[in-house]
């Protein structure tokens, strides 16, 4: 017999854990976020480290067999040559081999902006370059840039969503609880926001923001703009839920106790919208990631030399480049992976939390 008292929420989480795909997605998301946080350490090079001699160098093959025998992984040196069509070809020079170093010293960085360090997980000695996923036009390691890009793309998703979530809950909660004039005004406000096509609003707001912003300011500006355009749909749904929730008897009981309206909304009504809000939240993170990617892709978001998945993909806008250097599409895979994982988690959360949206009665 279970002795532990579980809240309904905990019971739902228990159910969640039984879905393998959802669990897998959670792990993947977790790995991606950890990768983003530890980008300094995990990446072989800094995002700025360029070497024009290795422009569009294909991904480096790691070899484990030296003359037929198992050995420490190593890579060969490469030489840039041009063939008869003036196409870049990297000839592998088997005479030079460079072993891979674990925990090697590499480019300097400041972990979390404070702690300086030089330690990288993998590296190799000069002059060879280790490109796990290939190099971009300036010879910068794509893998490293993807890791740094993850910081921007993933955090914008999270922070932006939390901001619009907060706004949506407050507006929706008030509109639903008070009804009448308050409801009217707030809902018309929502509709105004929803009416403008999202992407155009995004562009307009971005161009209204000064050109002379530093990258950090651009970053925050993007977050604010993105949350600005997406809180409205959440607010409407929360408002609908609050309209029916406020009729529940425990709300009446809370009123009878004499609690202030604010307390009632925050303690008794909004928590019951949480089950919906959480999976709505999960399902909108992809939208933010893609929104940021879209902005950066067309050059209005994060600028060079800083990396974001969207701006990495701007390199891939030419079919010629994709044909000859297909690895520049890797950022797209990561965007895809993240979006799919958030969607799977969101779907599974909704399935698990759905019964909580309805009241329960027991059969006797």
């Amino acid at each position: 017999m279970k002795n532990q008292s579980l809240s309904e929420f905990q019971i739902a989480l228990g159910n969640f854990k039984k879905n393998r795909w959802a669990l897998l997605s959670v792990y993947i998301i977790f790995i991606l976020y950890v990768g983003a946080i530890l980008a300094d350490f995990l990446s072989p090079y800094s995002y700025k480290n360029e070497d024009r001699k290795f422009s569009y160098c294909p991904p480096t093959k790691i070899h484990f067999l030296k003359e037929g025998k198992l050995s420490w992984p190593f890579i060969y040196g490469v030489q840039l040559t041009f063939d008869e069509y003036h196409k870049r070809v990297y000839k592998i020079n088997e005479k030079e081999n460079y072993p891979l170093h674990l925990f090697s010293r590499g480019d300097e960085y400041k972990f979390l902006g404070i702690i300086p360090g030089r330690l990288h997980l993998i590296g190799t000695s000069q002059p060879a370059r280790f490109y796990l996923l290939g190099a971009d036009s300036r010879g910068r390691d794509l893998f490293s840039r993807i890791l740094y890009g993850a910081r921007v793309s993933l955090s914008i998703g999270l922070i932006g969503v939390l901001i619009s979530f907060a706004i949506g809950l407050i507006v929706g909660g008030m509109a639903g609880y008070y009804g009448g004039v308050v409801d009217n005004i707030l809902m018309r406000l929502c509709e105004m926001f929803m009416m403008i096509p999202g992407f155009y609003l995004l562009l307009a707001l971005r161009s209204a923001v000064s050109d002379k912003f530093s990258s950090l300011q651009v970053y925050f500006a993007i977050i604010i703009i993105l949350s600005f355009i997406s809180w409205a749909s959440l607010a409407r749904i929360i408002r609908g839920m609050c309209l029916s929730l406020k009729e529940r008897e425990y709300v009446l009981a809370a009123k009878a106790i004499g609690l202030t309206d604010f307390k009632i909304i925050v303690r008794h009504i909004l928590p019951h919208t949480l089950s919906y809000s959480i999976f709505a939240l999960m399902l909108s993170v992809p939208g933010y990631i893609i929104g940021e990617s879209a902005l950066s892709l067309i050059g209005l978001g994060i600028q060079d030399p800083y990396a974001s998945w969207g701006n990495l993909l701007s390199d891939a806008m030419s079919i010629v480049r994709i044909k000859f250097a297909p690895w520049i599409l890797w950022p797209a895979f990561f965007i895809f992976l993240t979006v799919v994982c958030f969607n799977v988690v969101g779907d599974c959360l909704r399935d698990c939390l759905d019964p909580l949206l309805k009241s329960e009665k027991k059969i006797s």
Partner: protein
Amino acid sequence: MLLELKNVKKYFPVRRGFWGESHESVRAVDGVDLTIARGENLGLVGESGSGKTTLGRIILKLLPVDSGDILFEGTDITHLSARQLRRIRKNFQMVFQDPYSSLDPRFTIKNIIQEAMIFDEKGMTRLQQEDRVRELLLAVKLPEDVAGRFPHEFSGGERQRIAIARALARSPKLLILDEAVSSLDVLIQEQITDLFKDLQKKFSLTYFFISHNLRVVKRISAKIAVMYQGKIVEIASTSELFHNPLHRYTQALLTAAMHYKVSTTNQEISLDERSRLIDQGNGHWVRQ
């Protein structure tokens, strides 16, 4: 005199014009006079649509009156500011009908009861609060370990006890029971009504019992008022009402409740606008 209602009216607009003016209204409470004396439980019986639930909410100040006065211990509480309301609310509390939805499922039992004490919290340390919770749970005959559990782990009868404990948290003088036992089965109903009698003695409570179930109302009330279409049609002491019902509606109600028979008058009993409650002597009033 604990509670007095004087000519209380509450109408609900049914159809609104374009600009919000009402064309028709449902007369939920249509000129009700009631008094509840301290220690003298009053039962209010009526069918759905009679307005009795609305009356309960009005007394609890959850709904504003359209006209009329409400006096509590002599003081007029009809129109009060939110702050004044909060101060007087400790005097009357309600136990609701549905034990499945009157407790917030996300709160533990302890939190539910503590929340009711929220205004007295300032004077109480955490330990004192916990003691009070324990005291209340004991008073409603629930074991102590329920405090950490959640509402969905309990049966209907147990949840109703928790709701009662919550209502008692601030030591109210008047407890309004709005169909408090109607969704429980008969044996549990008996247990809870016995509990009510017990608690009345222990905490010197007075009950205002609203129900359509005459059998239960009879057990607890000293006086019974019968409500029909927003008006009181008969008030008498419990035994007097059961032995000598004078109004046709009361008679129909009693026949149905005790003998499960449809009373012979099948046509709708209509109330005259000019009818008034007339004293028949012995505290027995009938609308004529």
